[in-house]
């Protein structure tokens, strides 16, 4: 039996080398960005400060990594992406295409993602899974809730910042969007407070990059809301993929544009399915304990 091997495209190795070099350079720029460093310090401080928090404050403790690593991470990548805009006439004539440079920018999200993972471990160290404050979820589902609240937003926020930086010229766009998202999470959550059994309000609460799954009125009354934390992670990852694809769409042409557009439409359909499944999964009604 003979096998015919197609020779590797000579430019492929060079493209890979260029991409790795670009990704390393962007990662270095991101890691020393003052906004990102501020976010890391604040995340560490709030996690440490809430280590002995009373049980009903643990829910708010999960909120800080999303705000700092996700929100401020988004601002940092937005400014990082925009910082090259003025150099575009020079950089634009190099052999590296805009989608390749965008892909290199997207890789910097690994840094806040790893910070999110470390924060999750620290949070679980201070507030071990199985505690009553996590509601009626099983211990693995409790970890899934924390992953959806701490780790995935740390990845998604910076990716959204890259997409925003590629498409929006307004310099304050990341600030405005972070405030709007912060307000939206508040609005989307308030419905579940008054109507915990409502399917519509559950879907509204989960139609967001961050969601609470429990509510603690006092130490004796923990309400576990409807919705599947596992499928919510799937929805969040679909949002992350959407952000990457939207960012890559800028400057893509020909075959690359066709592929990105087709993948984007598939991801959007998957995201919609995952949102519906996340809203209908989990407990059939709110559980009070």
């Amino acid at each position: 039996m003979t096998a015919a091997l197609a020779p590797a495209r000579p430019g492929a190795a060079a493209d890979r080398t260029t991409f790795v070099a670009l990704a390393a350079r962007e990662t270095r720029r991101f890691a020393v960005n003052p906004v990102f460093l501020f976010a890391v310090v604040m995340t560490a401080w709030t996690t440490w400060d809430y280590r002995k928090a009373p049980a009903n404050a643990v829910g708010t403790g999960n909120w800080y990594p999303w705000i700092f690593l996700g929100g401020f991470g988004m601002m940092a990548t937005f400014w990082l992406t925009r910082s090259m805009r003025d150099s575009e006439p020079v950089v634009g004539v190099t052999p590296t295409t805009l989608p390749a440079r965008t892909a290199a920018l997207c890789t910097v999200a690994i840094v806040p993602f790893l910070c999110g993972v470390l924060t999750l471990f620290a949070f679980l160290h201070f507030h071990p899974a199985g505690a009553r404050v996590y509601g009626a979820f099983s211990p693995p589902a409790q970890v899934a809730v924390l992953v959806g609240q701490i780790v995935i937003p740390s990845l998604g926020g910076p990716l959204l910042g890259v997409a925003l930086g590629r498409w929006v010229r307004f310099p304050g766009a990341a600030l405005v969007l972070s405030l709007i998202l912060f307000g939206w999470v508040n609005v989307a959550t308030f419905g579940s407070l008054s109507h915990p059994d409502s399917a519509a309000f559950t879907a509204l609460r989960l139609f967001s990059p961050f969601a609470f799954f429990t509510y603690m009125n006092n130490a004796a009354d923990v309400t576990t809301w409807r919705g599947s934390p596992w499928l919510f992670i799937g929805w969040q990852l679909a949002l992350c993929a959407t952000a990457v694809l939207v960012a890559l769409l800028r400057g893509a042409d020909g075959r690359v544009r066709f592929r990105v557009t087709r993948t984007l439409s598939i991801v959007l359909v998957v995201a919609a399915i995952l949102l519906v499944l996340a809203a209908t999964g989990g407990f059939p009604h709110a559980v009070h304990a």
Partner: protein
Amino acid sequence: MMVRSMLRAGAWPAVTGVSGAAVVAGGCGIAFPAAATELFPIAFTLLAAAAAFTLDEPASPVVDVTPTGPLQRTAIRSLALLAPLAAGALLMLAGALRGLVLPWAAAGLALAGNVVLGFAVACVARTRTGEPGAPASAAVVLILMTPTLLPPVARWVSTFPPSGGGLSSNTVWWTVLAVCVAAVAVSVSGRPLPRRLPGTGITIGRDLTS
């Protein structure tokens, strides 16, 4: 003639766009009254960010050397503050008509304080750069959102009524207004603020003979 052309050159898309976003956020607070105390501060913060864009001047290298002084330019551009102020007043009126229970006089003071703070930071930053909008709005948003993001800070200081513990919202905003008026007065006086040349340690813009 000059007033019209100076106003036309303003960053109106940024000012009206961010004010529009504030109206959306505040409108959600009016639609969901339970969330009003969370969303109104966000709306007011966005209005402060909008105010920070009123002094953006992309043609500053040309404009800054014309005989029109900074006082006159700033006075004309301050008319653009009517946009965020009107948006905030509209939100408060809609909230009052909807039956929201808030101390409206204190909320009005907070609105004025937010907008003037954004403008004052932009005035100070304008002495260094032609387009202070982005950094000034970022600084203002960070300052104003701190009590919302960090509950320990909210125990010491309140930026939106009803006040919790610590300094009341009224005390904070009267103080901020006084400081902002002084900062604006100094920044438009025409005396360049000292600035350091990057990497040299040399300070320019300061009269060394006196």
